[in-house]
């Protein structure tokens, strides 16, 4: 199947050819007879769901994993890439999802780290060289800045510079936009285009289809460890790509159930706090999904944490069914019917070292029937709960007895949703609920949120993804610098909402 793909298209000889690569882990085949060609001057997107084998394939190319079968040719010659060092010597560089930078070091010091060129450092020359590189490819980053001063987007540029400094022609980027704001992502794409035009070959690992269609020259889709197809943005569409990835059609617009909007469940009045909230007021009613749109860092996290009681506001009122809950402990606010899907599921959602069943009961572990009068956990009941949740929410795990850390991101999020929704809340606070999830999982999470509306619950959806806001919300507000800067109907034009996201629209337009 993979042999006939793409051959003949493009005249330049490929920079890298991976042929029939098979990589097994004990009990699984992560890459199954995958072949791939990378050409000079192209952005090659490698897409697939979590666990499809994208990162594994690239780690094989970068020398981090040995492949059991298959071979790699670089510039027409077969090479055995046994370590990242060999990969770099062959002009292959990789930027991982999690950066490996020394915070107190300057950009230049980080870039030359491991390639200092002798015992005595010529920092002036190194500075110059790094500055030249940055200028050549349009990287906005000051060589003398220390890494701790940099934003995430800038740190990523330093990582790319590190690879370029070592003279790589083939640059692998593992989910580079996962950590970026939309603006930063666009800037990255600008950098990548320059690199491509300079003849570099770029592998762009992603599962964000819009981005892939925007930046890629060619697209290879992996599913279950196999290459299931190769295409170009011109030949394909988002829906087609999603179908190739998931193996079935995926809906990007779900039908919103029509539910009668009821009484206000949550009223927030003039919430002030910690410099990030500057007088937020909003209202969510039963059966309503209120979408809070905005660029990240404008108080989203602080708002969510204030509502669940993690971060008491300096002033203002939070009325839950008419009763002020400001100052109450988290447990009490939860008891009053608030569920919380945090933006960071590792920091605030799951205890990764604990098992699925232990996580499934977190927050309800002190309620009957999960706790006996004497303070013992009723493990039988908890395991029944966990078994039921795992089944209902389709959490794929080997067992409820494995640590939560062994689940994929999508399954971790399903577990959190399952736990939070099973408590039958009146209000769901969902903060960036699909961050880092792949298409299939996003659809699942969206369905669950819409189902809450159908059940007559109130939902406060905080998201940086405008797609998500549109797909789910009955009403949209924009959050900018800790204030609500606009209110919009669900069919408002994106341009209008964009104005609010940038703070322009102070006078609220009622729908």
């Amino acid at each position, binding site marked *: 199947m993979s042999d006939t793909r793409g051959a003949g298209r493009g005249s330049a000889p490929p920079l890298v050819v991976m042929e029939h690569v098979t990589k097994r882990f004990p009990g699984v085949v992560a890459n199954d007879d995958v072949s791939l060609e990378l050409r000079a001057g192209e952005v090659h997107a490698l897409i697939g769901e979590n666990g499809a084998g994208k990162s594994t394939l690239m780690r094989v190319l970068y020398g981090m994993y040995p492949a059991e079968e298959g071979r790699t040719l670089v510039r027409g010659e077969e090479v055995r890439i046994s370590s990242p060092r060999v990969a770099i010597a062959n002009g292959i560089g990789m930027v991982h999802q999690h950066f490996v930078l020394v915070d107190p070091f300057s950009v230049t010091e980080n870039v030359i780290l491991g390639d200092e060129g002798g015992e005595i450092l010529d920092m002036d020359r190194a500075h110059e060289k790094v500055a030249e590189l940055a200028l050549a490819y349009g990287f906005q980053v000051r060589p003398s800045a220390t890494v701790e001063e940099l934003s995430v987007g800038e740190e990523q540029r330093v990582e790319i510079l590190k690879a370029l400094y070592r003279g790589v022609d083939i640059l692998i980027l593992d989910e580079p936009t996962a950590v970026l704001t939309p603006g930063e992502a666009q800037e990255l794409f600008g950098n990548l285009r320059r690199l491509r035009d300079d003849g570099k070959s770029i592998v762009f690992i992603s599962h964000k289809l819009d981005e892939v269609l925007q930046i890629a020259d060619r697209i290879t889709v992996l599913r279950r460890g196999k290459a299931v197809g190769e295409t170009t943005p011109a030949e394909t569409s988002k829906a087609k790509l999603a179908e190739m990835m998931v193996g079935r059609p995926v809906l990007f617009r779900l039908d919103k159930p029509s539910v009668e909007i009821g009484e206000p469940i949550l009223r927030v009045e003039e919430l002030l706090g910690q410099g990030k909230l500057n007088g937020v007021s909003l209202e969510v009613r039963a059966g309503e999904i209120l979408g809070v749109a905005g660029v990240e860092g404008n108080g989203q996290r602080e708002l969510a944490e204030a509502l669940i009681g993690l971060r008491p506001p300096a002033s203002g009122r939070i009325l839950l069914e008419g009763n002020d809950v400001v100052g109450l402990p988290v447990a009490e606010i939860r008891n009053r019917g608030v569920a919380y899907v945090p933006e960071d599921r590792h920091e605030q959602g799951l205890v990764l*070292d604990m098992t699925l069943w232990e996580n499934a009961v977190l927050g309800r572990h002190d309620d009957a029937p999960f706790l006996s009068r004497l303070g013992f*956990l009723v493990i039988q009941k908890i395991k029944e709960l966990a*078994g039921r949740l795992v089944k209902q929410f389709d959490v794929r795990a*080997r067992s*409820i007895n494995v640590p939560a850390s062994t689940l994929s991101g999508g399954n971790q999020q399903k577990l959190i949703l399952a736990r939070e929704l099973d408590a039958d809340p009146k209000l769901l606070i969902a903060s960036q609920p699909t961050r880092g999830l792949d298409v299939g999982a996003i659809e699942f999470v969206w369905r669950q949120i819409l189902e809450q509306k159908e059940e007559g619950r109130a939902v406060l959806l905080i998201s940086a993804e405008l797609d998500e806001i549109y797909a789910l919300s009955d009403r949209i507000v924009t959050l900018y610098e800790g204030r609500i800067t606009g209110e919009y109907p669900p069919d408002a034009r994106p341009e209008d909402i964009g104005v609010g996201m940038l703070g322009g629209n102070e006078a609220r337009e009622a729908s």
Partner: protein
Amino acid sequence: MAADAAAIRAPRERSAWLETAVGQGLALVAAFVIALLAGSVIILLYGESPLAVYGAMLSFAFRDPTSFGTVLAIATPLIFAALAVSVCFKGGLFNIGVEGQFLVGMVTASWAALTLDFLPGLLHLTAVLLFACIGGMVYAAVPGVLKVKTGAHEVVTTIMMNSIAISIVAYALNGPLKFTEAPPGQNVDLRTDIFEKSALMPDLGHFFGVEKSAHLSWLFPMALVAAVLVWVLIRRMRLGYEARAVGSSAGSARAGGIAIGSVQVKLFLISGALAGLVGMQQVLAERGALVQNYEALLGFTGIAVAFLGQNNPIGIVFAAILWAILTRGETALQIETDVPREFVIILQGILIFCVVVVYQVARRRLARRQLQRAGAEVGLRDTAVTDEQPQEA
């Protein structure tokens, strides 16, 4: 519903659990062997045969019931101390203050032994033990509350409080608890009066042919019971669950409605109560009084033992016994070899060192392998099952 839970249990799971247990066990054995080998080099430098020296140490621990009884008696306070350390550790707290808490426990227990002597029989002993726990708890409550209310780091406060505790013992022996009848002869060491018999811990060893000189008392089975109770607390009770959640992810625990401060204070109290019992072996089973030249540093040894037992209550029992065998080996060295007794301290140090290195290396490799496998497996199963799912429009 239970059937559902069972249905998703894959057959591999048990083997993974076993792999972890066996892997960790092997790592500990390997660490021990490496430590013995390293110790052999030192023995050879003294011109002795490692086999003979280790043989002497071993036979000294096992050659008759009294020998082994002595080992268990030495292990007894170490078990309490290590349990005290581990309880806090589960909640992400590093209680360096077990030493101070145990000293204060000895003082309060001695006060109870001397003052509450009107209590009949077992009630007197119970009260003494209770006061030992209370002393440790009160002393542990201070760093606990300081931590929660002011954020003062428990390592700093407990270290400081250890020094204060030494002075508290000295004050008690010079003042309120000082003997009323001077000891006979030339002995001018300070101590309390000898306790009434009803305050002492009865001997257990003679049931098993262990001589009384071994001081194997009922405290040893109490330490075993304490280990089981700690296990139950950590694995089966609300507080233990909350402690583990706080210890491994404070943010998620807080978002789940767990009151972190309250959990941490409770852990300090339980830890202090266990620490209070550390001194009872010497006070109630060996000396029958609180003496000036009491055996100190047991709290610190408890940190090493807790570490050796990987903070697992059952592991701690075995680690304490192993530690005691080595400690008793000191006497063997003095009697039967030319190797100085300090060799044991060096060996214990090397052992901890080896456990740090070998155990961590092994655990990391094991974890990486399991995580990799689990991740890859679940990832693939994800898509595999998705394919078969019936789709609604």
